[in-house]
């Protein structure tokens, strides 16, 4: 194990890892019953005036209608939003109250940047496995259009002080501190607080470090659009999606895009690096609005309600990297989480039938794959004997991913889990074992959450 690396086997000895697997086997299963989302809309589009609560409720109501959950008391609902107004402190509970679920359904909010949606699935699945709850709805929502805007620090301090003083002269004195610049609002941005670099600029550093070409990124983006369009045409999303505000498909999807068209786009990130700038609006995800939900249950609950059991939530792993001073790329945490998760479950990349690697940027997916194929990275950073390995690209994001669908931050996890569960169910068994899928989602703050699902 390298001193500076993140060991793939984790703190446990490998013999203990086997025991851990046995421990999990004694738990009951958490199954994915199905999911529902609204089509994702490019920011400033169809959902411009819809709030996070509106969209989450719309996705939830579609799920309720699909699985007959009217008046049902669900064990727990967890969801979240990355861009969230402080008045939405109980966003998920409010969405539940506005939905057709029983008002006696508890709910909580969770926030882990872009990993929010997947983390709600893992947390709730764990509760089901432990027998604490029998049913759960995981979800996420984000609106870049209806983003909260804060007042400036200067105005905020004045307003708070104004509340604390009693007399008119005191009030005037407090107000006199206001300067014109204090009236400028404070809009959210995608910059990392500690580096000031936007997510795209961070990824541009990583993309250049791993020498990912423009052509490879454009090819990944092209595949994403082509695969998503084909999935829509095949009716794959018919039972995964409810139309909302006139949209029936993700509005970012360009079914007719071509490699030639993608090649004409001008780079938008990494223009001041020594290396050639390769990241364009075509191979980066746009800001998007949308919401997704996933229905989870114990086997008994699903059977009692005569609902399908698509897939089992096997295991999950979170990781974080020290990106602040450039030791690793901001979005490279999954490169460490996946080897640990595979090792704990006694698996290799070859044992995976579907790879769902969230496309924050084409460069993110390709940098992660490059790291896994790199001998040096495998030895010094993952503590392995060599490279983790390479994947069969035909198993990667086969029904499209975020580059085509868009990426409403907290909604992406639910989109992927529901789609993957359906794909696994359709695939059934592979070589006598259940079909297996790997989800990997990178997140701001140098974090990542990954998970394994198996066909039920």
């Amino acid at each position: 194990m390298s001193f500076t690396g993140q060991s793939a086997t984790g703190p446990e000895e490998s013999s203990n890892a086997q025991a851990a697997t046995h421990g999990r086997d004694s738990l009951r299963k958490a199954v994915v019953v199905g999911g529902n989302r609204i089509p994702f809309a490019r920011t400033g589009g169809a959902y411009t005036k819809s709030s996070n609560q509106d969209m989450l409720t719309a996705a939830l109501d579609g799920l309720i209608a699909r699985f007959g959950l009217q008046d049902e008391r669900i064990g727990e609902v967890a969801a979240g939003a990355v861009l969230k107004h402080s008045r939405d402190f109980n966003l998920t509970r409010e969405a539940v109250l506005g939905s057709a679920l029983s008002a006696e359904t508890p709910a909580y909010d969770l926030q882990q940047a872009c990993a929010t949606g997947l983390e709600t699935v893992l947390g709730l699945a764990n509760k089901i496995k432990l027998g604490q709850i029998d049913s759960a709805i995981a979800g996420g929502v984000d609106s870049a259009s209806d983003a909260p805007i804060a007042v400036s620090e200067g105005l905020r301090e004045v307003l708070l002080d104004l509340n604390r003083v009693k007399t008119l002269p005191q009030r005037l004195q407090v107000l006199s501190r206001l300067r014109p610049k204090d009236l400028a609002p404070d809009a959210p941005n995608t910059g990392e607080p500690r580096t000031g670099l936007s997510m795209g600029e961070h990824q541009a550093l990583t993309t250049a470090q791993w020498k990912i070409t423009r052509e490879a990124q454009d090819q990944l983006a092209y595949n994403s659009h082509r695969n998503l369009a084909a999935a829509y045409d095949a009716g794959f999303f018919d039972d995964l999606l409810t139309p909302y505000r006139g949209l029936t498909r993700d509005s970012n999807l360009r079914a007719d895009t071509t490699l030639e068209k993608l090649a004409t786009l001008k780079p938008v990130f990494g223009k001041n690096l020594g290396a050639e700038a390769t990241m364009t609006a075509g191979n980066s995800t746009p800001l998007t609005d949308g919401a997704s939900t996933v229905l989870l249950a114990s086997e008994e609950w699903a059977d009692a309600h005569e609902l399908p059991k698509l897939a089992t939530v096997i295991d999950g792993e979170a990781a974080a990297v020290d990106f602040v001073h450039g030791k690793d790329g901001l979005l490279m945490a999954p490169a460490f989480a996946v080897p640990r998760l595979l090792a704990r479950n006694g698996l290799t990349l070859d044992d995976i039938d579907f790879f769902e690697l969230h496309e924050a940027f084409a460069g993110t997916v390709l940098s992660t794959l490059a790291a896994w194929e790199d001998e040096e990275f495998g030895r010094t950073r993952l503590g392995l004997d060599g490279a983790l390995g390479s994947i069969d690209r035909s198993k990667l994001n086969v029904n499209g991913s975020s580059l085509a669908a868009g990426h409403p931050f907290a909604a992406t996890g639910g989109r992927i889990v529901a789609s993957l569960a359906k794909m696994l169910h359709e695939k059934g068994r592979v070589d006598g074992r259940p079909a297996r899928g790997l989800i990997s989602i990178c997140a701001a703050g140098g974090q990542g959450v990954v998970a394994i699902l198996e066909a039920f």
Partner: protein
Amino acid sequence: MTGAQPVILGDMPSLSKLYVNAAATAARRRVLGTDAGITLPPCGHEVRGVRAQVANLTAYQHLVGETASDVLPAGFIHALAFPVSMSVMNRDDFPLPLLGMVHLSNKVEQHGAILFTEALDITSWAENLGGHRAGTQVDIVAEVRRAGESAVLWKGTSTYLAKGVFLPGIDKPSAPAAPASFSAPDPTALWQLGVDTGRAYAAVSGDFNPIHLSVLSAKALGLRRSIAHGMYLASRALADVGAVKGDSFRWDVAFEAPVFLPARVALDISSVHTPAGAWLCSDYSAWNPRSGRRHFTGSVSLL
């Protein structure tokens, strides 16, 4: 629908023009005396292929506390149909003065969800001209169908009172209704209504009746302050009842003391369930928490 076939209007009538016309008619009748008969117009009006504007729908939903779903709230459909009803009340042969009419009660039957993407045919007519101890009342009925279809998806009956108008041949009820005694229950909600409540609802409903807009415009029509739209209050109560009502339901409201703005309104919503726990209805009443005067009562119930 009674009587003759409705008159098909080519376009949705403009409410602002209708109000201006109503004011002109009121002035003319004041000078020349009333020339309208004592019977209701023999036919209704119909506008076909009406579509909700999604931006307007979202603003309405946010204002009354509905989630911005694709389903049109029952109160939004009332607002959508209102110009057609207004055009009936604006006809030269409509016997009552439109301005200053008081909304006494409202009944809605919603027979299924209507999505904002659907084109609708809206028909409206007047019926049940009758005596009231304080004047003359009339029912304005509106029906909403999917364009080209015959099944009624939404039917609203608004009962209005023309205060102080007594038409020959229409008797007023012999005994004035005894004021029901009301003792306020413990509230389940408390609404804070700002002075701009009427303007905000006017903006999303299109109902720019001057009595709702400002103190001055309300005073011009004889009120001491502007008052909240009745349908705004009822729509908030409907939103408060929530998703338990499903897609088909009955929604009634009877208005009592007007809500002068700004105001605090106390509200009680209590639901009735079957022994097995199935929802039957949610009854609501609202009152002034200071004076205890009741503003409105109503119910949302299984159809």
